[in-house]
């Protein structure tokens, strides 16, 4: 009986430890947000956001650079990723050898650290192709990096489209390609859009790839996609490690707000669309 009590108490204590861990997790994660906000919010001003980079630093080049990177990365990764998902779901059965190879490749790609992508981008775009540091090099490297994410979530959306819809379309005499473009893709559109929004979040968050590919030129506006540049995330690092902690925190706040709103947008869209799809059938 004594031993029984002891056993119960032992595990009750373990439960307390687990609850303490939960509090610690919440405290640590909220601390990250709160301290960055406290340090950063007071230093957000018009000069920092939209001023010209002179004596006082500005993140205008970074805002423009980030926008370029998003446009490049998404316009490269979206068609390839969606096409890839279409092939994987519509044209093959899951047992074929080719699918296994592609899956292993995507899984391996997803596990590669972003700095390794950075080296790759550096070797290809900066050195081999002779672009030197450029937004396009960084953007395409980012595209390769977010590809696995887009493929996987698009695949899920495509698989969620009921078989009967495809069969219905075939029964009406539509070709496979027509069925894909006029029936399957529209049905899966909401899921695909959500995954692209999440991919934008990834692009904005990434910095290790860019440090090796776009040059981290913080004080000049990019002149085009072949020009070197910087991004918001990269600026946080730059300011932080070059003696501008206040600007780093302020830029961090801007980045945080953008990324969080994008993620919330994706969640909300996912929910709204999800409901709509259920209601439709």
């Amino acid at each position, binding site marked *: *009986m*004594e*031993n*029984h*009590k*002891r*056993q*119960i108490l032992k595990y009750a204590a373990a439960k307390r430890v687990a609850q303490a861990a939960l509090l610690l997790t919440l405290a640590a994660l909220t601390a990250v947000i709160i301290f960055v906000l406290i340090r950063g919010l007071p230093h957000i001003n018009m000069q920092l956001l939209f001023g010209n980079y002179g004596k006082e630093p500005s993140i205008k080049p970074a805002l423009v650079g980030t926008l370029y990177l998003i446009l490049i990365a998404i316009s490269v990764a979206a068609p390839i990723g969606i096409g890839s998902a279409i092939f994987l779901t519509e044209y093959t059965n899951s047992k074929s050898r080719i699918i296994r190879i592609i899956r292993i490749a995507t899984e391996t790609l997803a596990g590669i650290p972003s700095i390794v992508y950075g080296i790759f981008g550096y070797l290809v775009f900066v050195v081999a192709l002779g672009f030197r540091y450029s937004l396009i090099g960084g953007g395409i490297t980012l595209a390769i990096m977010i590809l696995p994410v887009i493929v996987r979530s698009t695949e899920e959306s495509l698989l969620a489209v009921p078989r009967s819809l495809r069969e219905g379309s075939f029964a009406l005499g539509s070709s496979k390609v027509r069925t894909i473009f006029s029936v399957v893709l529209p049905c899966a559109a909401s899921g695909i859009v959500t995954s692209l929004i999440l991919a934008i979040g990834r692009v904005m968050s990434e910095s290790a790839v860019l440090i090796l590919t776009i040059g981290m030129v913080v004080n000049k506006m990019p002149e085009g996609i072949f020009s070197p540049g910087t991004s918001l995330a990269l600026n946080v690092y730059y300011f932080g490690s070059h003696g501008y902690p206040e600007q780093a925190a302020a830029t961090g706040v801007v980045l945080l707000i953008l990324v969080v709103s994008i993620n919330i947008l994706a969640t909300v869209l996912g929910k709204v669309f999800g409901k709509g799809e259920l209601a439709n059938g």
Partner: protein
Amino acid sequence: MAEKYNITVRGCDLFYGDFQALKDINIDIEEHEVTAFIGPSGCGKSTFIKTFNRMNDLIEDCRITGEILIGGQNIYAKGTDVTLLRKNIGMVFQKPNPFPMSIYDNIAFAPRTFGIKKKSELDDIVESSIKQAGLWDEVKDRLRKNAMGLSGGQQQRLCIARALAADPKILLMDEPTSALDPISTGIIEDLINELKTQYTIVIVTHNMQQATRISDKTAFFLLGEIVETDVTEQLFGNPKDKRTENYITGRFG
């Protein structure tokens, strides 16, 4: 816990939220007998058997009124040690649910829970429980192997052995053979007949032949009420209530 392990239920009502699942249940279950609960699906027999070891506590907004006495003590009284109650009242579930660990660890789970640590003592309990469940010859060479590797029927006997290892006085069985093939079912029925000399057994079944084969008394449930309780031969041979007769002759349910 008391020395005697008979069950007395008086005026038991059970609600899930607003839904009344059991209505004014009264029954006496004697020691060392097998009592079967029969009735169509959804009649409340499974719900009722779970009140004896308070497994209904898990369900939110489940409310029980009336008295359930085991050995004369109300198990829903304040201060009841539910873990001891459940140690004394073993339960076997509809689907075999061995833990995904070794056969040995499955059986030793309850003794360890109650503080037995000595290996020799655990070894003895494991061996005798598995022997009681008639599984020893089949598993004695692979006690350290994962229990999920056993067949469904073996898994269910393992679950019985696991319950026995807690040294219970009462065994509750909630349709223990409904997921098994006829041969495994036969083995378990024989086992129940052996076990009743030592344990009070309550079994839920929707198989009337099974009830006649193994039980001493049978209670017929319908829509949350006990329609009739009697010695098994009486109930099946000479039912007093028209509804019982309809049910056992297969006119509904």
